[in-house]
């Protein structure tokens, strides 16, 4: 019964034998590569046709692909073993960053390692779901209440540290990565609803803990026209860019909102608006389909995984990726308040590409290290 589903990868083994031996999942690779190409295309336009920018992005992608490839080679049970260590080191580094920030007076998110800057919070996007998945591996699922409480603490600690940096966007992602493990582990829906209600009840209290600029973002989200030249400017210009794109778009390199600088952050957080302006509704539906395809493939891999750790980790990584996309597009289209999150795999820069592809490497590894029965 359990092994029935293993038949299908076995069928395609002949075709994908080489890629399979290298632990590469072709559908995921195809989706990610297409997104990377779309990223270079829109970046060339929004970056003012600056080839230097494109070279840097290509370099970043290449590095990330190498990391993805390396991650894919590691069998899930090794990952599982390393999980507590990785989580512990990550938490320690977050503390270091926070203390360094206290000393340096001001926001601090990264450690300078000489060669490159390292953001411990990025690492936690992977380390937190790994830790929670590890914690639930030998448990009977759905987990018991005490276990859930411990897991919640494991999530809240790094999220709090990241939130203090302050980096609301990453805190949300790290938090949801952990929560998705809980949800995949079978957390009762009634719990989910209860937590949802209590969080909304606590919203006024949480409000006081927000930084002024974060409060401003929420207020602006509620009424962007209130401050059209200040905080509301981003969202107004973004909506104009998207709306004026229409069905077919203004055409590549022809987006007036982005080309004439009206659209702020047009190569980073608001790149989706630049894309929507130039490629129109058709373009964004294709883009959304591509994202959905990757997410569905990720969930399929999770469903096909053979052990609890793999399932939980694969499911959480995939859903975190989706949340990433949803929060960014939600904010750019005015559905959600402005949170500083890039559009995954499209936006320029950031360590996020590396983290994301490392995550996809893990997914590929989970899928390709299964012990398959011969057909």
């Amino acid at each position, binding site marked *: *019964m*359990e092994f029935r589903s293993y038949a299908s990868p076995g069928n395609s083994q002949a075709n994908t034998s080489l890629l399979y031996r290298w632990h590469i999942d072709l559908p995921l690779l195809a989706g990610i590569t297409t997104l990377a190409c779309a990223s270079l295309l829109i970046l060339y336009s929004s970056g003012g046709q600056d080839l230097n920018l494109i070279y840097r992005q290509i370099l970043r992608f290449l590095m990330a692909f190498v990391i993805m490839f390396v991650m894919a080679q590691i069998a899930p049970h090794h990952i599982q073993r390393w999980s507590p260590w990785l989580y512990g080191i990550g938490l320690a580094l977050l503390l270091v960053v926070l203390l360094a920030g206290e000393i340096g007076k001001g926001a601090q998110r990264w450690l300078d390692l000489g060669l490159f800057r390292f953001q411990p919070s990025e690492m936690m996007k992977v380390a937190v779901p790994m830790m929670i998945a590890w914690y639930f591996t*030998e448990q*009977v*699922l*759905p987990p018991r209440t005490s276990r859930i409480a411990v897991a919640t603490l494991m999530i809240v600690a790094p999220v709090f540290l990241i939130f203090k940096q302050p980096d609301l966007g990453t805190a949300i992602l790290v938090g949801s990565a952990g929560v998705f493990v809980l*949800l*995949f582990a*079978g957390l009762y829906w009634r719990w989910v609803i209860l937590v949802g209600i209590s969080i909304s009840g606590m919203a006024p209290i949480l409000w006081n803990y927000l930084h002024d600029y974060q409060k401003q973002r929420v207020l602006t989200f509620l009424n962007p026209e209130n401050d059209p030249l200040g905080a509301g400017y981003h969202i107004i*210009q973004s*909506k*104009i*860019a*998207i*709306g*004026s*794109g*229409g*069905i077919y778009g203004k055409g590549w390199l022809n987006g*007036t*909102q982005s080309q*004439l*600088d*009206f659209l702020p952050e047009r190569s980073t957080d608001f790149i989706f608006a630049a894309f*929507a302006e130039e490629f*129109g*509704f058709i373009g*964004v*539906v294709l883009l*959304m389909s591509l*994202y*959905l395809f990757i*997410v*569905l493939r990720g*969930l399929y891999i*999770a*469903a096909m995984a053979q052990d*609890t750790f793999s*399932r939980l980790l694969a*499911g959480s990584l995939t*859903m975190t990726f*989706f949340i990433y996309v*949803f929060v960014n*597009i*939600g904010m750019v*289209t*005015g*559905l959600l308040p402005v949170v500083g999150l890039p559009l995954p795999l499209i936006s320029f820069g950031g360590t996020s590409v590396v983290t994301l592809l490392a995550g996809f490497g893990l997914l590929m590894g989970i899928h390709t290290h299964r012990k398959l029965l011969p057909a």
Partner: protein
Amino acid sequence: MRVQITIKDHIREGQLFTNRAVAFVILCTALVLVIISRLAYLQIISHEHFTTLSQNNRLNVLPIEPIRGLIYDRNGVVLAQNVPIYNLKITPEQVSDLPTTLNKLAELVEITPQDLERFQKLRKQNRSFKALPLRYRLTDQEVAKFAVNRHRFPGVDIEAELSRHYPLGDLVAHSVGYVGRIDESELQRVDQANYDGTSHIGKTGVERYYEDILHGQVGHQEVEINAAGRILRVVNKNAPIPGQNLHLSIDARLQKIAQDAFADNNGALVAINANNGAVLTLTSLPTFDANLFVNGIDAKTYRELRDSEDHPLINRALYGQYPPGSTIKPFLGLAGLEHSVNKGGHVFCPGYFSLEGDSHRYRDWKKEGHGIVDLDKAIVESCDVYFYDLAVSLGVDRIATFLKQFGFGARTGIDIYGESTGLIPSREWKEKERKAPWYLGETVNIGIGQGYTLVTPLQLTLAVATLANRGLRINPRLVSGIQDPLSREMQLIAPTLAGNVDVVNPDNWQQIVRAMTRVVHFYKGTAKGISANLQYQIAGKTGTAQVFGLKQDEEYKEKDVQKKLRDHALFIAFAPADHPQIAVAAIVENGGHGGSVAAPIIRKIMDAYLLKEGNLASEETVN
């Protein structure tokens, strides 16, 4: 070990997980649909709305100021032109730190406290996206310095602009006038759309009267701008229609001669072509440099001009009202002839005049008297007693009616604003305005152009021209032609008639003109001083207007009286006497005697006009 050891049920766990995965597939798909419907709302349903907003972002319609028409004198000398100047402008909205920017700019170009004050004032009045001038007329050096450093100053720009310039400075300031920055009330008066790109408007003189013709039609350009407001390219352009050029009948050379002839005296002189009313010279002294007003006069200079006792800003030729003095006599003489009063009669002049039953003596200027005087002698020698007698015989109302036919007491309708009406008193006027009855003694005074009677130099000129034309009264005009700057086609302005003084006997004209000719050419004439070497005949009349009332026993001694209280010297004349070409009136304030002070000035004008320009040959005339 734990009490509760459970064996993991892999099948059940697998099902649970699959259920969750399916739930998330549904959730993800649903959220993607939410996003897609949001995008459909933005990109399909609200597409038009956002397209408009995007266009408004991108495109800006900017007005293009039409080039103001030029003003020339009768010989093509430029009186008003447009010269390029470079102004430094700041768009406050685009400057993040205004005080720092201003400080840094001050290192490159000179910025006075007045510049800053005006800029701050403009900031309060204008919206922050509008570019406001900080400095006008940058020097070439300052332009170069700023151009090199421009990248350091977002929101600051140099704007080349055409600025009005009056090459002759003060010479024609009272006729051409000047332009200045448009103020609130003027903006209400004009078609605001047409003045969208215009900063200046005619304030006085021809510049104001012909504002509509000089201004032209505003053009527009649709430009693409970026978020910083910089113009990237012009998308569409609708060129402005330049204003029309004006050709004045003013002769700058004559104007200069007149101004020089006045020396340091204040006064006014108006010379017109007797045949068509074209104004040749319109002098009002002292005058001022019209260029001062173009880009905002500073408060101190303005105060000095405004508060000066000499009133340089007042156009005396139109606005100044003076007692005509003896220059009124030819007109009264004609009235006497017309009404057959004292016709051919003689009056004995003992040096004073008294009304019957009154001991008050109205003095003649000649203490010992003129003896027996007829009309001719009364005009030639300017006998006061003759005209005292004539005025009493005519009566105030007949005098008023007759003088008004010559245009006295009403605006002439010249093509610049700011005329006074002057005043021709009558019984009715006195009862209405002064609430008092008319006294006979007042009639005596108006016989020699004193009392209530007031005229403007322009009225005098037109009246003497009417005499020259034997009753044809022409309208004065400064502008003789309007020229399209593109096709160079000139539209001439035809002379027009204001009216006609009807006389019973045309010979009466001849009598008056003959007497006026003898004023200059007869050895006893009051203006005989200017007759030396005259190549043509001048018909004229001197006048001396009292500024300062003398008491009964006092005697007027020029040297004893303060300059300010001395008599005004007047002279009116036309020439040549037999076929008049030019008519002139001059008043020299506190100048003394008309014959010795005002007449020589007019002689110079006439010589210059008739001899040097060969205008003795007849010109276009009114029919």
